[in-house]
């Protein structure tokens, strides 16, 4: 087998990514046809910038979903003779069952760079949006009362959030994301009260709290319905909560490795104060509106006004910030990987791969450049998407 030239490499990659193209084509056709009925999402297809961003983001989402179909080799398999192989190199040992080339070359441990990049998309896209969503839950649940009620509550919460914001991010990561930290702290009924575990127990509780307040404030006049909604929230929420925070899910579906939990909790912790500040600012701005005053005269409770009057009206900036923040979280995760913190060295996530590749950067750049470009394009897509959304949401 000969080595492939660059056009041949690109053609082979395009072919490998076929499921992604099909899915992208479907989403775009359907969305464009029905775009007048899809609200803000539909209007995204009127703005070229937003559409480009959406296409890039969905490309990575579909790559992550179809990753097992796309990869050409096992991302952990080390094939002999392929150490630091250049892009397009043919396999040395000719097993017929394997894909005959390393499309984007091999890394320092003779693993396929292309497959690792594709599998890395899975890691990144599993953690970043989830961590951002948790940060938003925490920020919204605390930011709404801080902005609406104000007073001493606001002073205390703002002080704490400024405290976290003044903390240099990298230092915080170095202190929080170490393996030893998992083993310190008292043991309570078989559960280790280490700092990340305690933080997880607190932070992961916020979504449950948020939804319980959300249902209660709306349906407390109709106890039967309220009980059903809160019952469902509690059943689902506590199930996931027990699994993620206490590793005590009886069915074993929800569980997090200690390392991953460390990373996840620190990223949520770093992001939550910024969301808090944004929500607080928006709330302070919106609470002087007439509809809030009207709600107060009608005798609506404070939580009803916050969650059902103010929050829906603050959704525009929050959606835009959510997109930007996923990008920022991706960058943070990459930073963690770059310093070799948290995740295992075998993990194909982009930050760790860049870190592993930078040692031979001036001789064999491809193992580091491929994940670097992948990470950059995903964040760029998210930023463009946010820009498009902002433009479209400002139009009404």
């Amino acid at each position, binding site marked *: 087998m000969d080595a492939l030239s660059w056009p041949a490499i690109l053609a082979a990659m395009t072919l490998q990514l076929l499921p992604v193209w099909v899915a992208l084509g479907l989403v775009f056709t359907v969305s464009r046809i029905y775009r007048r009925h899809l609200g803000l999402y539909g209007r995204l297809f009127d703005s070229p*910038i937003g559409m480009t961003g959406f296409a890039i983001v969905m490309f990575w989402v579909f790559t992550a979903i179809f990753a097992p179909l796309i990869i050409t080799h096992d991302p952990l398999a080390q094939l002999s003779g392929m150490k630091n192989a250049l892009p397009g190199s043919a396999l040395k040992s000719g097993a017929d069952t394997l894909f005959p080339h390393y499309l984007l070359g091999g890394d320092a441990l003779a693993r396929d760079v292309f497959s690792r990049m594709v599998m890395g998309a899975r890691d990144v896209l599993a953690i970043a949006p989830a961590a951002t969503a948790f940060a938003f839950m925490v920020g919204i649940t605390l930011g709404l009362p801080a902005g609406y009620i104000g007073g001493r509550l606001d002073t205390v919460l703002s*002080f704490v959030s*400024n*405290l976290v914001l*003044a*903390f*240099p*991010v*990298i*230092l915080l990561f*170095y*202190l*929080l994301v170490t393996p*030893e*930290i998992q*083993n*310190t702290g008292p043991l309570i009924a078989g559960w280790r009260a280490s*700092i990340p575990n305690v933080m997880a127990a607190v932070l992961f509780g916020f979504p449950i709290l948020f939804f319980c307040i959300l249902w209660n404030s709306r349906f407390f006049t109709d106890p039967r319905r309220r009980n059903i909604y809160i019952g469902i929230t509690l059943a689902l929420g506590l199930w996931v909560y027990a699994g993620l925070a206490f590793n005590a899910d009886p069915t074993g579906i929800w569980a997090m490795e200690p390392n991953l939990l460390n990373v996840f909790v620190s990223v949520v912790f770093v992001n939550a104060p910024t969301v808090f500040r944004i929500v607080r600012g928006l709330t302070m701005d919106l609470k002087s509106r007439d509809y809030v005053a009207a709600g107060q005269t009608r005798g609506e409770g404070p939580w009803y006004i916050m969650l059902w009057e103010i929050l829906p009206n603050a959704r525009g900036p929050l959606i835009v910030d959510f997109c930007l923040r996923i*990008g920022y979280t991706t*960058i943070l995760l*990459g*930073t963690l990987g*770059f*310093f070799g913190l948290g995740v295992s060295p075998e993990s194909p996530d982009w*930050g760790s791969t*860049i*870190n592993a*590749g*930078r040692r031979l*950067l*001036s*001789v*064999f*750049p491809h193992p*580091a*450049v491929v994940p*670097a*470009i992948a*990470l*950059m394009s995903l*964040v*760029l897509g*998210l*930023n*463009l998407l946010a*820009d498009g959304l902002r433009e479209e949401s400002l139009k009404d």
Partner: protein
Amino acid sequence: MLRFLGRRIATMALTALCLTFVVFWLTNLPPNLEKVAKSEAGSRISDAEVASWLEKYGYSRPVFARYGEWLGVVPGHVAEGANGPEGRCILRGTDPAAAPRYCGILQGYWGWSNVFKEPVGKILATRLGLTGWLMFWVMAVMVPASLLIGVLAGMREGSKLDRSLSTVSIATTATPEYVSGVILVTIFASSVTGLKWFKGTATGAMDEITFENFFLPVMTIALYGIGYIARMTRASMAEVMTQQYIRTARLKGVRFRDVVIRHALRNALIAPFTVIMLQFPWLLNGVVIVETLFNYKGFGWTLVQAAGNNDIDMLLGCSVVAVLVVLITQLISDLGYAWLNPRIRLS
């Protein structure tokens, strides 16, 4: 004004106390102290020996007392060593009797670095000097470039120039330092694929800064900031350009160039000023990444070494500096904003 300043400084001091305490607590968790004991007294000692070593050198006291000692408000612990008294306040090779009772940050004593085998204060001074040069050049590149891009993009909103410059700034904000560093090195410094214009390492810049060895690290940090500041400047400029007085000036027949330079610029630069000041803490992040990537042994590199090698005093020293930088820039940004914007009154 004075009351505002006083309140701000009091909050700052409280924040600094809280943050340094958190760092102190996190760096002095039992496993870290155990590592210290093992590195000082031998790696094969038993758990009981570790405990007695910690007891002897005062590490087993409550964390608040030890934080006070580090801060310099609680007398330093003195242990009976093999060659007379040993302790935090008794420097190696000095007379124990002449040692001060208090020795903490407040007395200017930063501690001893286990990794570099030097006093922390001395290391910090040299390393900060090196990082200072990096920061200076980053600012010298970043501020003019981003303001220029922002003003050019914002003065005619929606034009072709605006579209292309905005896309460039979005692209640079989407490129974190560890990505742009890798790409820049590959393009400009790699010995296989690159143009070999610059050096891929900045180790030489510690002795003598040249264009060849310092361009890539500076550009790597500056690029990430440029996009962000440029976008803020653009938004601010675009808003100013829609104001009544700009239209009036245009209708009076003032040239477009003069309107931009004389009427719009000063008002448009208020918002970016805060952003630039608040960018300093972010630069800290970039500095750590770039110094690691380019092997430039400044403050960021030291922080990584200290964190990786469990060098507690060094890490505490680094965090004090980092926290102070963040807090002082926040204060300057608030004051400067009020000073530049006459509509804001401090009270």
